[in-house]
């Protein structure tokens, strides 16, 4: 389903990325999971990504930088931080630069799902309210 919200999970811990992706796939989203910012950016270069779920502290490229680069590619991308830290300078920086939400690890999946669906409705498909479709990239 090409219209499904495209989620990209980025976590340097592969099991985390995997389980997260599996859950979201099971929930019917188009999900890709990668283990580094580099890979994430590659994917975003190639295809549409609506929601970016990313760890903050990662080797090579941290969440803040990834978010910044992702915004360059897709300014309207919905980015979410997943972090083990509840307060951190990086997180503050990310929020300043447009990170939508910060989820503490372990991520409350139910909450995440509700968030995604909310975002899907209010963020990517505002047509219901505004009467016209939002740009969804090259769909």
């Amino acid at each position, binding site marked *: 389903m090409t219209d499904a919200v495209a989620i990209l999970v980025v976590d340097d811990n592969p099991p985390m990325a995997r389980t997260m992706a599996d859950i979201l796939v099971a929930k019917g989203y188009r999900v890709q999971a990668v283990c580094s910012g580099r890979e994430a950016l590659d994917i975003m270069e190639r295809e549409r990504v609506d929601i970016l779920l990313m760890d903050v502290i990662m080797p090579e490229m941290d969440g803040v930088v990834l978010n910044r680069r992702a915004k360059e590619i897709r300014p309207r991308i919905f980015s979410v931080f997943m972090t*083990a*830290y509840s307060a951190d300078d990086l997180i503050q920086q990310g929020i300043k630069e447009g990170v939508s939400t910060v989820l503490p690890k372990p991520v409350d999946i139910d909450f995440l799902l509700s968030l995604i669906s909310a975002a899907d409705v209010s963020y990517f498909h505002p047509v219901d309210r505004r009467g016209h479709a939002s740009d969804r990239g090259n769909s």
Partner: protein
Amino acid sequence: MNWQTIIYFSSVLVTFLLTGFLAWYAWRQGSLPVARPYAWLVLAECLMALTEILSMLSPGEALARIWFNTRFLFAASMPVFFFIFALEYNARRRWHTKRLLAGLFVLPFFTQIILWTNNLHSLWVTQDVGFHQSGPFWLVETGLRVPGLWFLVHNFYGELLLLAGIVILLLAAWGKRKTYLGPSLLLSAGALVGLLAAIIPAFNLLPQLKFNPFIPGIGLSALLYGLAILRFDFLKRFPGMEAAAPSTALDSQEKRSLALFLVVFLLLVSGIASAGYLSYGKFQHDFRTQAEAQLSAIANLKVNEMANWHRDRLADGDVFLHNPAFSVLVTRILDDPADEQAQGELQAWLDATRTAFQYGQIYLLDPNGGKLLGSPAGSAEIPGHVIGDVPPVLQSGQVTFLDFHRHTDGSIHLGLLVPILADGDVNLPLAVLFMEIDPNVYLYPFLDNWPAPSETAETLLVRRDGEDVLFLNPLRFQPDAALNLRFPLTDTTLPAAKAVLGEAGIVEGVDYRGVDVLGAVEPVPDTPWFIVARMDAAEVYAPLRARLWQTLVFFGALILATGLGLGLAWRGQRLRYYSERSKVAEALRESEEKFKYVFEYSNVGKSITLPSGEIQVNTAFCELLGFSREELQSKKWQEITHPDDMESTQKIVTALLSGETESARFSKRYVHKNGSSVWTDVSTSLRRDKAGKPLYFMTSIVDITDRKQAEDKLVASEVRYRRLFEAAKDGILILDAETGVVVDVNPFLVELLGLPQKKLLGKKIWDLGFFNDVAANQANFLELQQEEYIRYENLPLETANGQRLNVEFVSNVYQVDHHKVIQCNIRDITERKKAERALQESEVRLLAILDSTPFPIALVDEQDNIISFWSQSATALFGHTAPTAKEWYQIAYPDPEYRREVITRWKPMVEKARSSSKPVNAGEYRVTCKDGSERICELYAAFIQDKLVVTFNDITKRKEAEEAIKTYADKLEAMVEERTRKLEQAQEKMVRQERLATLGQIAGSIGHELRNPLGVISNAVYYLKMSQPEANESMQEYLGIIETETRNSEKIITDLLDFTRGKVSQSEPVVVDRLVERVLERYPAPASVTVTHKLPARLPKILADPGQVEQVLGNLVVNAFQAMPQGGRLTISAQAEDKMVGIVIRDTGVGIPAEIMDRLFEPLFTTKARGIGLGLAVCRKLVEVNNGWIEVASKPGKGSLFTIHLPIYKEQV
């Protein structure tokens, strides 16, 4: 001419005659050695007396002076003659050589030159003697003489010679007192008198003497000599007459020393005398200056006084000369002699003047000399000469001074005549005032007064009176002298005459009494008078003379002491000299005795053989030939000489006698008493007398019979060895060790080399082509000379026919007949070499094999000592090797302890290998390489034949690997321990310093690390539950358990993170009671626990954050409940302390073990099965941020008691 002069002249004359006689007498005794110099001596004296007579009788002073000076020719030579006489007299004839004579006369000769040329340089005298005539004689006045330098030299010289002569004379008497004491003393006394006679006038020691005592002194001296002749006949009997006894004769050495002593003595005496003279001269000069100054001062004083007095008197006259008042009064009495008033006034005036100025009388005379008035009134008549003087005085109109004059009554007066003129006009003369002065009133007492105490001093007032000098005052020694005593001006020695004749200042002379005086003369200005202040020279110079005698005595004593000292020193030296001589004689005697002893008791046969053949022998000689001494004494050498040696011996004797040789050594045979031959080694030399005539042969003989036999044996032995040499199957070459010349070569070598012996002998070894390597140059030869041994194992040698041989070459140096030779043994080893080479090659191959094995191998000798081979691999492995086992141990096992261990382990293994003949594993050894690294080697020892083969198996790598593994394991363990320890340390540190922030970071990172896996787990569970909705129950249940525990874990982490975040308190006044209630409400107690809470009713509020305090109390209460699982009592109480409130929570639970008490408040410390141990840490932290503290007390099994102290709230007023 007076009696003194007559006596003097007579004495001179007598002297002349006496000395003349003595000279004649002595001359006649000319054959006697003493007589000639004595004659010269008295002749000189005689001639001196003659010149004195001639001088005295001269027609004029000049001639007298010339004769006087001529005297010195004899005066100067006289001491020289005396000295020579003394030498002769005392048998010192040998001393007076011509050279000495000439030397002694040098000074007198110069004296003559200087004397006659005194005008040019004044070296002789600066003021010459004076002469005065006394009757027909010219008498010399030596007192006037001021001596110059040379005069002193002349005097000292003469006096020294006289003194020296006296000493020598007395020395003569010293040895033989009895015989010669008298004449010596007399002669010495004569000389002493002469000496004194010379000194006294030279230095004017007796100024009272009117004449020169020199010649009379000489006369007296001559008289004493004459007495000596008469009494002792000294010309014939004197010490020198006796043969020069050895004891008194001085040898040249003594003479030299005596001469030295004399020179020293002369120098010292000259020095002392000069010092004395200079000392006295200075004193004299000073003294004289002082005396003269005194006299001058006194004369000056008197002159001034006299001049003043004279001027005052004239002034007295002047008072009347131009006095109109006086003239008027005089006019009045002249006009009217009855004018009593005028007369009275004049009388009073004159009286006043007379008494005021101490005039004797004052008269007023009319122009005719008639007395007008007088004071004292009515006195005696006017002296006649005064009357005569009146007219000229009136004419002159001046005050006229009347000099000393005598009245008819004999009294002496002076006076003033003052013309009294009317209106000061000489043409209107009125009268003359005559003022008479009595010198006894003032003048004479004044002159008589001498300001210092003196026996003879006085002041003379004199004036010229015609050609005379007139004495004006009464004199000390002639009271009636005034106007009576006069002397002619020609009497120039008189100081008064000198004064009148114009001299001024200090004068010497003879006064009116004929006594020598010293005076100061000076004219009195404006008067005809002269003052002479005089004093007897005797008085003036009395202290000087005393001083002179002192000086003479002192310096005389000094000279005497010097003479004595030097005499003693000389005597001492002589004694030493003789004692040495006697020692020498003693030594000579001893030497003779020694010789005798040596000759007699020598174990060498000795003989003294006369040229005629008679022999004198010692005991050893007798014993040698078996004869008794008596038997040999009568024999000639020819009788005991072996007939065969007779001829050769005779030849030697002849050669010695002819002087061809001085000594000889040879072997000859004597014939023993028993007829056998005795071989002897004979040394003989010929002694000759001074003329070269042979005296005797001195012969030593040594029995060499045994030696001869030994020599024979030696010859035999040499023959044997020669045969050995000839027959040897080794080449033998004998070289001269010094030169390297071939001395001998044996037939074998000749054959070997293929060269005739001739071509070898006499050549130098390095000139022979064969031994290029042996002695290619002389350096090698030098080495041989030094080392004395050289061995060449394998020397190529090319023979004459070109054949190449290998030879073994051994050289030894040894002594033959005190001469070093080198013996070279040359052995043909060509065949042996071949075999050896084969063996060697095989060995080389073997070694090459060994060398190429990768295992390091060493070949050691049987004793496990010398290492003959190290394989390349060994060198490569260790980097170093050693030639012996010992050295190897040193470098391979540098640690001494380890080395000992190695050796103790190794040696038994070697023995084991030796006994078992099998390779033995000797174990592992740590070998130190050259670069300092260590290799662990397994060593194998094996004996192959007689060699120990040591093989090293390098197992370092294996060991290292094992070691590395072990090390790694240890390291890991250590690291874990280290980590744990560090963590503990860090915790402790953090707790101690309450650095919970750091803990927060740790907790944060742990949280992060755990959250990720927890996240994954929860994701996975979520996924499973979601994807497996129809899973069975138990699966569902377990998934639930996982989910719950994951949440629990997450909760713990969250708590932890919460805790670590910083806490800030927000203080406010809090009522403790209410707070406690709220806590108990919130944490209800289990049923088994009874809670008691009673707080004081008036407990003050505390200032704290209520939420935080509540949290603390809650924690403590929950802890207390948990500590009482079996039930118990919880008591909460509180009390106010000083500024704090203490809240106590007590339980009756399990209590806290003592060992964990300290760590109770540490974060993460817990004893509970559940919980992460933050409770109490949080409590403490919260209490502390509220400015309080927490305490705990506990007894295990009884319960615990926590107290929190919090500050009391102080209400703001």
